[in-house]
């Protein structure tokens, strides 16, 4: 067991995957000798050579197009998009190619070996183009898996699972926690399941659902609520596609109340999907309306970032309102 921050845990996962399987290949903008702008790929080129860890030209659609072909050939590409805000030039390659490769060929060909890593989210004074949470664009795309870790331990286990998963995975890394989140991480190889949520705190009065960096915020809100005698059950979804309906529904059967929180804008956000599904499954058990605590329906701001973000106080207020409905 070692103490690692999230970047070290991700770097460690990549190192393990590359050591184990020579078909694992890491590439993207600045990931070579520099080790990536956040250093997630530090020392990988030194260790495994330029053929297996390299810089690409500055062309996201090329990175993912290349990665799709490489995966179809049987390699295991781990492609980095430097910021999730810059994934959109590759949208066609991801949505029309990655996601449909197996289906359209009747399983003659697939790009299941592909993992796309990309840092997402706000809280780092990044403004419009270094802060976005684009998960909902991709959860609307059958054929992809979308995974978001909340801490170093989760990041290592989920990334190793993503790399070895038989389907292409979009791995969204909460960059605010890259260095801020520090925790115990086993040195050895381990995987955490894709498609399974985790109840990280049990409670009886209300269910709080989120993923990634938002889990820290949700947990803080839950602490405030507990001080007022409100017992919160906190669930980290971990995988958004596919997502674990059963675990969330089980919790809501018990608590009768639910809040979903994400940084992305409200309208069309993934919280809407969760709310719709849970009201269908748990209608007669609900004591109050399902509430979403999210970013505003605006581009991501800069100076007023704190005001925009769904912080612990906004969630705490939503908890109070739900419980007092």
């Amino acid at each position, binding site marked *: 067991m070692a103490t690692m921050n999230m970047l070290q845990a991700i770097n460690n996962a990549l190192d393990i995957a590359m050591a184990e399987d020579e078909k694992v290949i890491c590439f993207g903008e600045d990931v070579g000798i520099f080790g990536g702008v956040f250093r997630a790929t530090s020392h990988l080129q030194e260790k495994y050579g330029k053929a297996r860890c390299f810089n690409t030209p500055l062309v996201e659609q090329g990175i993912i*197009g*290349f990665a799709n*072909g490489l995966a179809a*050939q049987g390699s295991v590409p781990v492609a980095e998009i430097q910021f999730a805000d810059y994934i959109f030039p590759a949208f066609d390659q991801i949505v029309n190619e990655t996601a449909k490769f197996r289906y359209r*060929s009747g399983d003659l060909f697939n790009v299941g070996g592909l993992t796309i890593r990309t840092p997402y989210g706000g809280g780092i004074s990044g403004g419009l183009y270094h802060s976005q949470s684009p998960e909902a664009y991709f959860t609307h795309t059958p054929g992809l898996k979308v995974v978001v870790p909340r801490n170093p331990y989760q990041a290592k286990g989920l990334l190793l699972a993503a790399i070895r998963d038989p389907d292409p995975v979009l791995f969204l890394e909460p960059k605010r926690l890259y260095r801020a989140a520090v925790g115990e991480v086993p040195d050895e190889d381990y995987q955490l399941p894709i*498609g399974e949520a985790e109840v990280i705190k049990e409670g009886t009065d209300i269910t709080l659902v989120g993923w990634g960096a938002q889990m820290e915020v949700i947990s803080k809100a839950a602490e405030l609520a507990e001080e007022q005698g409100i017992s919160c059950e906190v669930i980290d979804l971990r995988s958004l596609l596919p997502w674990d309906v059963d675990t969330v529904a089980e919790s809501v059967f018990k608590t009768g109340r639910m809040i979903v929180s994400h940084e992305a804008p409200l309208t069309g956000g993934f919280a809407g999907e969760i709310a719709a599904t849970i009201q269908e499954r748990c209608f007669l058990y609900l004591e109050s309306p399902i509430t979403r605590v999210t970013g505003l329906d605006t581009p991501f701001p800069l100076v007023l970032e704190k005001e925009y973000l769904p912080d612990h106080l906004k969630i705490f207020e939503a908890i109070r309102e739900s419980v007092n409905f």
Partner: protein
Amino acid sequence: MMTQYVHQPAFMTGDEFSIETFSLLNPDGELYPGGEEPALTRDHARRLYQAMLATRILDERMMAAQRQGRLSFYMQCTGEEAAVVGAAAALDDADMIMAQYREQGALMYRGFSIDEFMNQLFGNELDYGKGRQMPIHYGSRKLHYMTISSPLATQIPQATGYAYGQKLAGEGHCTLTFFGEGAASEGDFHAALNMAAVHQVPVIFFCRNNGYAISTPSTEQFAADGIAPRAFGYHMHVIRVDGNDALAVYEATRQARKIAVEQNQPVLIEAMSYRLAAHSSSDDPSGYRAKSEEEAWRVKDPLLRMQRWLASKGWWSDEEEAAQQESLRREVLETMKRAEKRPPPPLESLISDVYADVTPALQHQLDQLKRHIRRYPDAYPRGAKSLDLTLSSATDTQGEA
């Protein structure tokens, strides 16, 4: 590169370079003076021509079938058979081909059977693609032919990635990707060529410059002298070839393959040709180009040229031509009748292959759908058929796909 300074401003446009067109056979099938016949054996040359001929006949028959309403959609390779088949014939049969959509000739050359073509065109239960894509979206794993995808140019950077994997595997294979001059306007084209040059990848970028992107003539597609000069910007080997001359295409591609595989360098080939047919069965070229233009290209028919050359070698005869045409037409008609009678893929194929394994959520959606179809079977005849007959999932009765 060393910077060379000058002290008067001098602009360049690219007109400083002129790119010639490599050709071997004149329209009468005679070797141009100074040209050398490639070392093609009789069998290899005949295989090449027969694939061109089979493609022409398949296209004629299937377009007619589309006009009769038997088929929803079709696209012809007509006029470009030499470019497509000539390129395929210069590859190793285990090299990967990643095509755009008009390159059925390459698949024909590799040995895709008429039956396999038909099953895809009719999207029946034997279609490898399980009836999920529109007609002409063929694919074959055993023949190293990537399943076609409608979005244009997406296959080009994929070819770079595929070939990078081949290079690492070290088995001496390369990838050839086909695309039109219109698709070369997409960003994916630039991304692919630049990455291939930077990472020294054994890939051949084969541009079919057939003059049109649906109705848009190449003069409205780019201002430069075609696609070939773009290679300079990537520091890439490039050759322009007469796309109606199967021998020249063969030889250019053969040498390109050597560069790709032996030097790990990408090559761009621009084959100059003409789309003799409409863009697709949904298009009518009379709205945007003159008949006389088409007629001028008909004289340069790539089949006639290759046929004449073969005849001059004593490797083909009029009798063989007539017999082959007759037997191909019959085969196409017979297989078409069989293919259109085969049942559609089973309802389960709606949800398989989205992921490696069917997710519980998808299974739930299918179960709901089945209950609904059982209630209204007449409204969903295809789905109801597979429910009632409880067919096994679409399997390939002809062996490996």
